């Protein structure tokens, strides 16, 4: 696990993944806690776990589980859209602990299907190629799914732009009508008022 970042003990850190439907997302993480005495991050603090919460674009919770200091989580999206993956430690210490923080290593992979390496090595080269070709076909299916999803989003985008355009046009017409009718009402009202006051 390569990339890491720091977070407070009770802080929730969230990652956004915009994925098409029926896509497998796999995440690997490792968390370490800062030790004040040793002034370093401990390899694996005992009892430390991470709550992993995954929320769908429809604000439903897809996954909410407690994992240990090191773990792998995965979920398959059934809706297309922005899924939010949140990590929060289960530390029960109070917030005002000076200098306490966590180091979280994270790796998230979208749409990858793991090859079963042992199956691949056992057979001879022809079957290995066959197996890898199937993997490649799956990856190309994933590319095709992403492109379909992109088409959906572009359509939504185009609808928004056209809605804005017609809103502006409609509003300009309504505004003109309101202006004219209010002008007429103002003058009529004032004329009636002055007539009643015998000024005209």
């Amino acid at each position, binding site marked *: 696990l*390569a*990339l*890491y*970042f*720091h977070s407070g003990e009770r802080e929730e*850190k*969230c*990652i*956004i*993944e*915009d994925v098409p439907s029926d896509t497998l997302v796999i995440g690997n993480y490792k968390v370490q806690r800062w030790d004040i005495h040793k002034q370093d991050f401990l390899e694996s603090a005992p009892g430390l776990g991470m709550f992993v919460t995954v929320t769908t674009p429809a604000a439903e919770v897809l996954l909410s589980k407690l994992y240990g200091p090191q773990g792998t989580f995965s979920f398959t999206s059934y809706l297309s859209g922005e899924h939010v993956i949140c990590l929060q430690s289960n530390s029960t210490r109070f917030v005002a602990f000076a200098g306490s923080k966590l180091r979280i290593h*994270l*790796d*998230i992979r979208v749409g990858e299907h793991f*090859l079963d390496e042992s199956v691949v090595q056992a057979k*001879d*080269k*022809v079957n*290995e*190629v066959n197996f*890898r*070709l199937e*993997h*490649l076909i799956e990856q190309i299916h994933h*590319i095709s799914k*992403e*492109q379909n999803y*992109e088409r959906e*989003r*572009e359509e*939504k*985008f185009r609808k*928004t*732009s056209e*809605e*804005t355009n017609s*809103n*502006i046009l409609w*509003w300009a017409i*309504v*505004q003109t009508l*309101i*202006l004219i009718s*209010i002008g007429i*009402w*103002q003058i009529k*009202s*004032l004329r009636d*008022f*002055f007539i009643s*006051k*015998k*000024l005209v």
Partner: protein
Amino acid sequence: GQERGRSSGMPAGMRAGMRALAVLLCALRAGGTELTFELPDSAKQCFHQELERGLKFTLDYQVITGGHYDVDCYVEDPNGRTIYKETKKQYDSFPHRTEVKGVYTFCFSNEFSTFSHKTVYFDFQVGDEPPILPDMSNRVTALTQMESACVTIHEALNTVIDSQTHYRLREAQDRSRAEDLNGRVSYWSVGETLILFVVSIGQVMLLKSFFTEKRPSSSGAST
């Protein structure tokens, strides 16, 4: 070499081609991480990675939603020296070859913004692309047809991945702007209607009030 019963009938060239194809099909892109996260206003988020010396890495980042779609970014080497620093950038790409072994840090800062939180995407690619054919560099003969097909497919797929990411981010950003615009038009329409009514009715009432002051010697009444 080992004796393979089934494949002993294959010519050597074909076996090499199969090997190349097998390597191609499992050739991953150079290691890296890409993440999208939300950066709250007046906040900074840092990421760290331990790297060897002499490694090539590229940091691409883009702001997808929020405010003026810009963010500050800086990269520091293990000695604390800033090797890249930009303020209020919408997107950028920073390639670098490491000179020191250690932990490299890159940070995104939204500290200049008081109320708009940003969604930032970054892609941190590490390492040189390994050559997809094992002995491609010291090859004496020309590549076989299968091997050159492999190379072509590999390069084409890499281009597809880059294209897709680029278009996905651009579209997300443009859609965010369009939705902002739509919201602003709606609010402004409602607001202006209200202002129109308030001002025009207020004008008439104000004028009427000028002429309804109680004066003993008002016009029209004769004593």
